[in-house]
């Protein structure tokens, strides 16, 4: 353990591997938790999960065909996000079964293609994530994305609230709700693809969903939920990251476990304060 600590704080390791991972990681966690607030409250929680599987399929195909992974995965996942949001709005086709259909198909295609080509190394990175292997361009992309998401949230905060709370009313006051849904689809898709490289396809949806659920246990206001979700997810990321380095565990899974731990703590705190409020 002490050895681990010593390695962690050698300047070379810190600058070359740890710092980019932390910067990129914080950027992606902020994006996923902010977008998560809207996705969870609009009951689109499973979209993140479905998109990550679709992204996994796209990345596998790209790896086998020797194409740049991001250039293939981003457009495919953005297109999928549009389709899934549309299906969810359309009452005739149930959104959750459509997501299940899409994501399992994409997952199957990804596994089929990569197993046939005998390519397992790159592809398993996308399945389980490899935050310490984030390239410089990934980090830059994550930071740009997080700046866009944070600015979107700041400038459009009141509209996002209205569209999330009551889409029909928002439309009646002249807000073009479809445009906002589209912006959300694109931002979610980009966040999912970037988050997938870090956390893996299996765990990215937890970064989207858990911080919001945690914040909802104790917060009464929308603003409180947004701020708490962002703070808790960044904090969980840092703690999880440190734990994984210290104990040699998988970073993605460690971060998720810390998130779940906070969820449980907040749940207890929430029910305690509710109980005392009643008595």
């Amino acid at each position: 353990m002490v050895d681990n600590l010593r390695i962690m704080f050698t300047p070379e390791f810190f600058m070359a591997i740890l710092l980019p991972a932390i910067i990129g990681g914080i950027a992606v966690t902020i994006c996923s938790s902010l977008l998560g607030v809207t996705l969870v409250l609009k009951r689109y929680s499973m979209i993140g999960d479905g998109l990550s599987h679709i992204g996994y399929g796209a990345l596998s195909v790209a790896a086998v065909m020797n194409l740049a992974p991001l250039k293939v995965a981003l457009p495919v996942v953005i297109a999928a996000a549009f389709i899934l949001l549309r299906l969810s709005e359309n009452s005739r086709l149930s959104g959750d079964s459509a997501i299940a259909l899409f994501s399992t198909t994409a997952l199957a295609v990804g596994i089929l293609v990569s197993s046939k080509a005998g390519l397992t190394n790159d592809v398993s990175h996308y399945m389980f994530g490899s935050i310490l292997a984030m390239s410089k361009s990934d980090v830059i992309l994550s930071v740009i994305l997080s700046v866009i998401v944070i600015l979107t949230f700041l400038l459009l905060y009141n509209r996002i609230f209205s569209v999330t709370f009551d889409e029909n009313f928002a439309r009646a006051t002249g807000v073009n709700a479809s445009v906002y849904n589209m912006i959300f689809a694109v931002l979610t898709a980009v966040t999912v693809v970037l988050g997938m490289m870090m956390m893996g396809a299996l765990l990215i949806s937890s970064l989207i969903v858990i911080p919001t659920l945690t914040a909802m246990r104790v917060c009464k206001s929308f603003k409180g939920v947004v701020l708490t979700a962002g703070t808790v997810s960044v904090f969980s990321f840092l703690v999880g990251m440190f734990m994984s380095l210290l104990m040699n565990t998988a970073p993605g899974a460690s971060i998720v476990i810390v998130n779940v731990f906070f969820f449980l703590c907040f749940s207890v705190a929430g029910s305690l304060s509710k109980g005392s409020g009643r008595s």
Partner: protein
Amino acid sequence: MKKILECDKLTASYDGSNVISGLSFTINEGDYVCILGENGSGKSTLVKCLLGIKTPDSGKIVMGEGLKQTDIGYLPQHTDLAKGFPATVAEVVISGCLGRRGLRPFYSPKEKKLAQQAMERLGIADLAKRSCRELSGGQQQRMLLARAMCAAKKLLLLDEPVTGLDPSAAADMYSLISELNQKDNMTIIMVSHDVVKSLDDASRILCLCSSDHSFYGTPEEYANSHISSKFIGD
């Protein structure tokens, strides 16, 4: 009397079939109009057209001088909207000001004052900091009505405002609506299933009887017409 909204030969469809065809009526300032009709008669489609959420197939809706469709305060049909949603009453009410704000990202003190006044008017000012998850059905409807008042310049459109309320909360809601109409000179358009109450309170009745047959007139005319017998019995 000043005209506030005019509907001219409106035709609209839902799921490919015409539910409203050639509907014309005029609403004046200070009117209290009840829209009656069975399920599937096109009430919700008409509401969507009036709000500008849906474009009619033909015909037009003309708003009175200086009013836009986004100036209509809208109280949506009861849903489980607020259930489980983390938002304070104040946050929900002020979101009604969104339409007047243009492209400015944040609310001005003037709009905050407007929201405060709306909450005071409806007697929910003391709930401002409470989460809307904790409200009773009647309090939730008041919150949404306050939000509608923030959006409304002169016209409120209420879609079945008492659905899901217990009888005393429903009576409160009705007297509140009448008061807004009489004291504040707010024009009211209300979709309702409650024929008897509508005949008591409203100044005009719009009945969508079938896709090509409708009635528009005073409650007395409606009560004397043969259409009403179907709803209130002989």
